[in-house]
């Protein structure tokens, strides 16, 4: 496949970025999107005609198997590109056509400043987690696995919430840059289980306060996050978070 890439280039957080166009040839339709960018970078570094190596495009990635949440990229107007419930590392070039122009942008949100090119700083998510996304437990031996019985449906729902990989696609795709889906999944995964129930009021308070403080937008329930989330985290978790928060505030 021969493609034209329109890639966002930005020197550092303070620099003003701009789009750069690149032509790339002979990409296998079976290669992943990130492999295609690897090929682009190779081309930039080893340009036969130009003896001076060009700066490769910086982008986030780690596991490349859809579990770590590191890869990002807003591709042709959609978070993680044109496929359902996948991360960018799981996106394949067969989703594009020969001769296509592909626009590649970083996540754009107040809470996610660009570090360089396509890399963004997602520490805001860590800060939200640090503010309450945990349970306080005594140290010592791990308790017996079946000491606390948990209903199958509850366990399933908590596991669904826990499948959030913190990628930030929800924020990136939201017209308000709201982090509600992420926060909701992190609140739900604990609030649904007996271990997390005790601190759920405190947790909802702290995490919402942090989320507001870090400059994320207000959720208007457009539902775009749920569609673009690679893990299919449900909006139900946002309803639960709202419930937790309202209960925490209105029922002292």
């Amino acid at each position, binding site marked *: 496949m021969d493609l034209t890439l329109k890639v966002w280039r930005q020197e550092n957080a303070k620099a003003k970025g701009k789009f750069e166009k690149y032509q790339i040839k002979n990409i296998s339709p079976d290669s992943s999107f990130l492999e295609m960018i690897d090929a682009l970078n190779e081309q930039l570094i080893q340009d036969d005609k130009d003896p001076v190596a060009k700066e490769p495009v910086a982008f986030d990635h780690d596991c490349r198997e859809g579990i770590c949440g590191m890869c990002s990229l807003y591709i042709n107007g959609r978070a993680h590109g044109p496929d359902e419930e996948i991360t960018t590392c799981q996106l394949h070039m067969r989703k594009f056509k020969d001769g296509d122009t592909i626009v590649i942008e970083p996540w754009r949100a107040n809470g996610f400043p660009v570090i360089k090119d396509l890399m963004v700083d997602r520490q805001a998510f860590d800060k939200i987690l640090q503010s309450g996304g945990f349970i306080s437990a005594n140290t010592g031996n791990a308790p017996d696995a079946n000491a606390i019985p948990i209903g199958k449906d509850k366990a399933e729902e908590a596991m669904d919430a826990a499948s959030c990989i913190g990628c930030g696609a929800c924020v990136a795709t939201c017209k308000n840059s709201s982090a509600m889906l992420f926060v909701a999944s992190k609140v739900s995964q604990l609030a649904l289980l007996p271990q997390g129930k005790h601190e759920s009021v405190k947790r909802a308070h702290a995490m919402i306060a942090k989320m507001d403080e870090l*400059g994320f937008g207000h959720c208007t329930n457009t539902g775009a996050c749920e569609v673009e989330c690679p893990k299919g985290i449900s909006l139900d978790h946002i*309803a639960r978070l709202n419930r937790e928060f309202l209960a925490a505030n209105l029922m002292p």
Partner: protein
Amino acid sequence: MLKFLNSSIGKKFLMSLSGLFLLTFLLVHLILNSFILFDSSGALFNQAAHFMATNPIIKVVEPVLAIGFILHIFYAIILTLHNLTTRPVGYDKQKLGHSSSWSSRNMFILGLVVLTFLVIHVANFFWKIKFTGDELLEHGVVDGVENAYLLVTTFFIDWWWIVITYVIGSIALGLHLFHSVWSAFQTLGFSNQLWRRRLTLIALVVSIVIAGGFALIPLWVKISSML
């Protein structure tokens, strides 16, 4: 409490409550208006309008309604202004149509259209009935019941653009409501897989009934006058 009202969810909480309250008002309003369709002598509608204008309970509800509107508009502005700041550098290419409905992304604009319509509407009827009066209202007064029917129908019959304005206002309202019903309950925490489906269906019915109903009345009055 203050901290709660300053939080994102707190503001949205007031947004949904005031919105749901305004929705109940719309339903009552539509039922009363529909009397125009059922009785072309206007007596039924005039009775209803008279009842609404004089009933003490309505007198109490009126300021509450005004507060509902003010809260809803105030928080809409606050929330929208903040949301305008959350993406300083925009995307070059964005395909949101794939993941969310047009209504849900344009609630503020739809709200503005509805508000503009509301101002016109209040100036047309409510203001005259309540404060300034109008000679049409005095026509054939029976037992102190003003002829609101004549005022309303004359307006629609005389001016096409008023009818068109009302139809546009109704459509904008319908689109606004289409997103709002489930969204309000979601914000209140009242939603899950099952209820989301139910509430979106209810939203569809409510928006069609309300938009269709409010649009039908001026059209009906105008068209039946031409027959």
